[in-house]
């Protein structure tokens, strides 16, 4: 189901439908539940579903670019932090020595994590960096 701006903010319009990875919804997360030990960090992390819902809302609000950002973020939820930081570092000017290094990272994103949109984004960067001479070693 595609959401629209009238569903925003999700936490206020449908708190029982916003669920964490283990299925706990926002109304289940109370101080008493925390004290009883029923809430874990896993319940306090955003899910791909919630990020895609925000993408729908952004698109309906006339912000397609932000919507794409949310959709890429949804793909990154289950990618290990270390790998995200590795790619992030690689995307800084002068870090990657060649287009191939970025294309490799894109391939890993697509193959190992099913992150197709994110992979396409890194590929786009690879070509843009080449055009702008950002592969030149700087330090």
């Amino acid at each position: 189901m595609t959401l629209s701006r009238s569903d925003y903010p999700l936490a206020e319009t449908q708190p029982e439908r916003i669920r964490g990875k283990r299925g706990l919804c926002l109304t289940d997360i109370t101080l008493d539940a925390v004290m009883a030990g029923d809430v874990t960090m896993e319940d306090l992390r955003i899910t791909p579903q919630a990020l895609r819902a925000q993408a729908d809302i952004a698109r309906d609000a006339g912000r397609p670019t932000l919507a794409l950002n949310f959709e890429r973020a949804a793909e990154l939820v289950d990618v290990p932090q270390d790998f995200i930081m590795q790619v992030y570092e690689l995307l800084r000017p002068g870090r990657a020595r060649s287009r191939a290094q970025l294309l490799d990272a894109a391939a890993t994103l697509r193959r190992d994590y099913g992150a197709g949109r994110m992979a396409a984004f890194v590929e786009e960067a690879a070509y843009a960096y080449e055009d702008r001479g950002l592969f030149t070693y700087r330090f």
Partner: protein
Amino acid sequence: MLQRDFEADGGLTPLPEERALDLRMQAIAAVSAVFEELELAQPTTEMKQSVAVASGSDETRSFSPRDVSFISEAIKDRGISVIDVIKALARRGFREEAENLLNVVKLRVSGDYLQTSAMIRDGKVISAVNDPNTYLGPGTGYRVTEERRQQLNAIRDVLDQKEVLRSEAMHEKEEARRIRYRSLGAALPGTAPGDIVIGISPAFGLKLFQTTAGHRLSDVLHEIMSAIRARGLTPRVVRFLHTADTSFLGLSAARLAGSGIGIGLQAKGTAVIHSKDRLPHNNLELFSNAPITQLAHYRGLGANAAAYALGEMPEPVVVPQRGEAMGSRYHARVALIYAIETGLTAEGAAPEEIEVTLTGAKP
């Protein structure tokens, strides 16, 4: 201040001093309770009291960077998470604080605050999605309500002209022992090639007595004048009353100077060397950062003005800047000082020749 004076509602609501102090004490107690409950540290009473009333980090007696790194390591090693902090708060009776913290963390689950221009008000998310910008030109868009205006006006620690004048007046007596300004009537154009005019601002030495760097105006004048004399030229002080603008003080001074070289000097310490043949603002040298300008710099400025008058091309005096963000720190005071200066100006008022006598400090 910006909120109040420009009605740019940045979302801040000033608190009465007492309420702010209560909140600070409560916050310090809550944070200390978490440290103790999680056995991370034992903040002392002295530490807690120092941070409650500190104006800056120089005044706090807190954990040393070394202590802090041990605490950080322990948090990492023991895998302490926000859930542990929420539990610690609640166990120590800070239930409201625990609820608040939990609500902040819950925001992450829905991601509503990730939308454009989002902020949280009373636990609810407002962003460009549910509160879009309706600005279509002057008179449209967000308007401050009367109630909101009252809140913005109730800002604490207001610095007003009275306060600035009061703090300046504290230096008045001391300056009276060091320097005398005597008006000799209308200032006339000089003819001697060694004549350099120092154009001072309307309130200089009358209502304002020190630069924003804290230098006495008598010392500043002494440095500039003796540096000019050291080159065998004659400094002449003229008070301008038609402008308080540094650049125009300098240009007007240059036009009166037999040498064609003038120095513009505001009471707050901003100074310029101008030549009579240059366009306004196209000065020879400028000290724009009065709060970091030292007496030696003013001496250099006097020496360079003399050098220009002698037809030399001296190396401009550099006031070293170390990236200090001074704007916000001095903004209010400087705006008020300038208002005091312009308050004494009058359209077309003639410049006054001033006899300056440096008497030095008498015991």
